[in-house]
């Protein structure tokens, strides 16, 4: 069986002013359909670069990203991204932001009424239908991120890419959104890759956690499977042995074996 998404010996280096800096080196990973994978690592280890490579926003220097055996070399709606800072267009309402994506992706295949229904279904999924006439400036950070998720889901992507989606939110809002993402994942079974630097978040949400070594030339240090049954509840997991063991494994990787050293430049 071939993998759904395959990262095949990926290298990425940036050239700036004659100086070449290698960011990622020899990344090898396969992800199955429906899997939820987190990528965790210290800041500057190239996690976001890796996500941009999968999204097609950045081109690989060597190797290939293969989605269902087809090489990815440009961005497209089948790999929808939820950006850290939501990236909603401020001159459009919540509804119009999603409508822009829906009419581009389903403009030919769905009728106008079907598109409207699809937009509303996705807004309902993130519980934001009530704010559909508001502009992004009029809603809170957590609500913006919900709309960002709805916009990505509305493209019906093969892979959902989350780039530190909860990084800019307060702890309570973050917990709410994590629950929402878990709920959506269990309902839609969407293949998801999430960048995070939050250990608890990674263990709570993921089927597998990919731990990155520090840059330059960062690579995958270890992949940890999280054998927790779903649905998962954060309160019960707080004292669950498997949860604590996974958490400890990630913490050990990040803070003992690959401690982040502030570069003395």
């Amino acid at each position, binding site marked *: 069986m071939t993998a759904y998404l395959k990262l095949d010996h990926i290298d990425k280096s940036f050239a700036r002013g004659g100086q070449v800096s290698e960011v990622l080196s020899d990344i090898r990973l396969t992800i199955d359909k429906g899997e939820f994978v987190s990528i965790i690592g210290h800041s500057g280890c190239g996690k976001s670069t890796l996500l941009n490579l999968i*999204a*097609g926003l950045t081109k690989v220097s060597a190797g290939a990203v293969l989605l269902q055996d087809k090489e990815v070399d440009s961005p497209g*709606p089948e790999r929808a991204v939820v950006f850290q800072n939501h*990236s909603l*267009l*401020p001159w459009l309402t919540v509804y119009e932001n999603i409508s822009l994506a829906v009419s581009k992706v389903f403009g030919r295949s769905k009728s106008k009424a079907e598109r409207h229904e699809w937009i509303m279904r996705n807004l309902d999924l993130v519980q934001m239908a009530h704010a559909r006439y508001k502009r992004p*400036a009029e809603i809170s950070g957590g609500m913006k991120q919900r709309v960002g998720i709805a916009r990505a889901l509305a*493209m019906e992507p093969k892979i959902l890419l989350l780039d530190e989606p909860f990084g800019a939110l307060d702890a309570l809002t973050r917990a709410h959104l994590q629950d929402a993402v878990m709920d959506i994942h269990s309902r839609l079974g969407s293949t998801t890759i999430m960048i995070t630097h939050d250990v608890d978040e990674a263990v709570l949400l993921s089927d597998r956690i990919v731990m990155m070594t520090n840059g330059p030339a960062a690579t995958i240090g270890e992949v940890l499977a999280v054998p927790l049954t779903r649905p998962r509840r954060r309160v019960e997991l707080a004292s669950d042995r498997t949860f604590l063991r996974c958490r400890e494994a990630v913490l050990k990787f990040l803070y003992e074996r690959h401690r982040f050293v502030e570069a003395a430049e």
Partner: protein
Amino acid sequence: MSIQTIEDTNVKAFPAKPAEVIALTAKARRRFEPMAIAGRLASTLVPPIIVIALLLVVWQVACSSPTSSLPPPSQVWNEAYDLIAHPFFDNGPQDIGLAWRVLISLQRVAIGFGLAAVVGVALGALVGQSIWAMRGLDPVFQILRTVPPLAWLPLSLAAFRDSNPSALFVIFITSIWPIIINTAVGVRNIPQDYRNVALILRLNPFEFFVKIMVPAAAPYIFTGLRIGIGLSWLAIVAAEMLTGGVGIGFFIWDAWNSSRLPDIIVALAYIGVTGFCLDRLVAAVGAFVTRGTTAK
């Protein structure tokens, strides 16, 4: 005297008063108050009225001597009363009110500036979007934009062989530069996030232009349009002086040739007020169109 005794005496010096109930009077409530509105009006209107009155007095005193070369305000009022009181009279092809002349000039500005806005935004988008277009075109723009409006006039008269298209061309070429430059800056400043959204949605260049670029750069574009309309109003008066016709610029030239100085002064006031209104109009349209876009 110890600290303790000082405190004691102080405390005794201020016996506690029984609490008072302070009734909220009707004045404390917010409601329609003609006095307050009149006060606000006065504070914005009175200072400029005083300054204008003082300037008129100084002018009157300075120009009252019989040897003075310029007319005092009283003479302007008496001799140009027809122009001031009847802006819309129409006594035949060359004898029309100043409002008509302003409207004819405005029509020229509308055509020239309208063309400049369309071409300027398109060129600005190109220069802002493509690094090679910028490298190639920016030096040319930077040199051409310093050419004074009237320096273009002989060339355009030679090219168009008619005064009306020449005047339009002068307006166009004067007002296009700030529109191009501001649009280019606005396009260059579109956040990468919006570009990424467009890339993921695979918007084609036209969709990107309409749905992302124009709204994102709108505040910059309107800054350019506002500078542009001011410049085109400057240019039209100068161009009409030389090309003739029935615009407000030619009226001034005509009045000078027949030594009607009071008429010129009234025309200047018309030009100033119209220019001010144009500027405010573009600013208001800009504020309406870009509402909500600048907020994060």
